[in-house]
């Protein structure tokens, strides 16, 4: 299941609702991405996430389907926000539930690694010096690439 939304989300409620009534998922892995105050040296006042409505949902759905194809998963959830966010606010949530923890961990990491390099979101950081677009990280490309040959674990 995927959601792209402006408003924040309740991490506990999302996990609880995903797992409600489920007695097959022994392992649940969650990744929560948050806005950091000191991202690139300067104090961040806010971050604005622009996205490509329509393509974003398609990309997240495709990633979700790929994870379900690669691992035996009971449940998956991806929520990604857009708009203006303050330090400490949640940006993205990935939840994977599986019978065993290995699949839950691998799928969760796969989803966030690949999301970062394929989902059309762009961050602009606001500091005292003004607003500027964040450049893509080479490390993110490497992490996403590490999954291309069906690797079981993400990059270091």
């Amino acid at each position, binding site marked *: 299941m995927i959601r792209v939304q402006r408003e924040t989300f309740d991490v506990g409620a999302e996990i609880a609702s995903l797992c409600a009534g489920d007695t097959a998922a022994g392992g649940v892995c969650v990744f929560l991405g948050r806005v950091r105050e000191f991202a690139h040296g300067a104090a961040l006042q806010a971050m604005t996430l622009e996205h490509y409505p329509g393509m974003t949902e398609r990309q997240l759905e495709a990633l979700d389907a790929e994870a379900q194809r690669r691992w035996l998963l009971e449940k998956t959830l991806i929520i*990604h926000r857009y708009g203006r966010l303050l330090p400490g606010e949640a940006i993205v949530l990935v939840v994977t539930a599986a019978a065993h923890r290995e699949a839950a961990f691998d799928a969760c990491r796969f989803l966030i690694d690949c999301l970062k390099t*394929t989902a059309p979101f*762009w961050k602009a950081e606001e500091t005292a010096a003004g607003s500027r677009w964040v450049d893509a990280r080479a490390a993110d490309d490497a992490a996403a690439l590490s999954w291309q040959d069906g690797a079981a674990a993400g990059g270091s």
Partner: protein
Amino acid sequence: MLTILYFASVKEKAGCGEETVRLPAAVTDVMGLVAWLRQRGGGPAAALTDLAAVRVAVNQEYARLDHPLTGDEEVAFFPPVTGGAP
């Protein structure tokens, strides 16, 4: 009609987020569209000067420069994505 979308820093350079154009008959793929936009000049031409920093999607799927165009697609130009979290 072809819809062209620009996002993030590419949008800022282009000076607009969306435009609709009638594709010249000579343009048959993304590279042809880029060449035509560059020749047309203005913001979009500036935004597409350095293609190494630009990603392309056709009908909301990532596409290469040799992706064919018939003239009724949605083509998007944007920088490498930076979503997710640290």
